[in-house]
């Protein structure tokens, strides 16, 4: 496992806010030369800490007015039905994410829809008809906030 110092953590916080920052821009923020910043970013990539990017869109502006988190319990459990369910559910374009969970439900789905009646159509025609689907609980997303996580707040360099 890779050990991070305050500069690494500062770089991760910067990239969480804007993944498109150049090595030069990162270097200026944390007090490193462009090549030194680039080496730090590469190291974080190679260690698998920087694991990709998330594109944040204004869903309303794109015509997707509703996001719903669905808890799904499978009625019949077993290896085969899990695989079948996962394959079928991931193929639905409105299903943005699928997580296998342990607890009250078996899966958590994130579903986007144009409006509530569109969501009802997706739920009834595409999700409830899948093999093995049992109990379903829907919660409509009102607000969402991503947090930086345990990266501290330490500055990369002492203030001048």
């Amino acid at each position: 496992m890779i050990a991070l110092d305050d500069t690494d953590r500062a770089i991760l916080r910067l990239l969480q806010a804007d993944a498109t920052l150049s090595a030069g821009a990162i270097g200026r923020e944390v007090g490193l030369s462009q090549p030194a910043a680039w080496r730090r970013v590469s190291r974080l990539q190679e260690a698998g800490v920087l694991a990709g990017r998330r594109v944040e869109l204004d869903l309303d502006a794109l015509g997707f007015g509703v996001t719903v988190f669905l808890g799904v319990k499978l009625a019949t459990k077993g290896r085969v039905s899990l695989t079948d369910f996962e394959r079928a559910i991931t193929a639905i374009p409105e299903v943005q994410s699928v997580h296998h969970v342990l607890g009250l439900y078996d899966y958590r789905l994130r579903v986007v829809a144009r409006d509530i009646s569109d969501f009802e159509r997706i739920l009834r025609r595409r999700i409830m008809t899948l093999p093995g689907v049992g109990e379903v609980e829907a919660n409509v997303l009102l607000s969402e906030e991503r947090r930086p996580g345990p990266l501290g707040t330490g500055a990369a360099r002492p203030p001048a």
Partner: protein
Amino acid sequence: MLKDSDRRILRHLLADPQASAAELAERTGMTAATLGRRLDRLRDTGVLKGQHAEIDWRALGYEVEVSLRLTLEKTAPRAFDEMIAAARDVPEVTEIQTFLGRVDLRLVVIARDMAHYQEIYRDRILTLPHIADIEALMTVAAVKTEAGLPL
């Protein structure tokens, strides 16, 4: 209103968020200059709100991810605001969502192991204000992550 070409850019960007500007230009059949202008416009109009690096917390030794579904004591007028403000102060909370439904609020909490989780849960989560009920679901695996949109 978005043009078809904007939708095309966003489709390609969602399909491969790491793509460079040159790669995106090639895939969308635009010149680099046109693509750059379009991306700027999507940002200026607020459609493209941001591109964020995702951290794999496992690579940093956080093996446990728990989704906490909370219901709040809604008799307190500022229950949501006070809860959210307090949850922001817990470093291990990586997502905060509010809902209309049986669940009021969802927190994603990461921890190094179960003992660490237990510590966070007891000292930082149960002490949050206005909790009426908590259910915990542990994330076993991500089968599909925020991939696309039917644009």
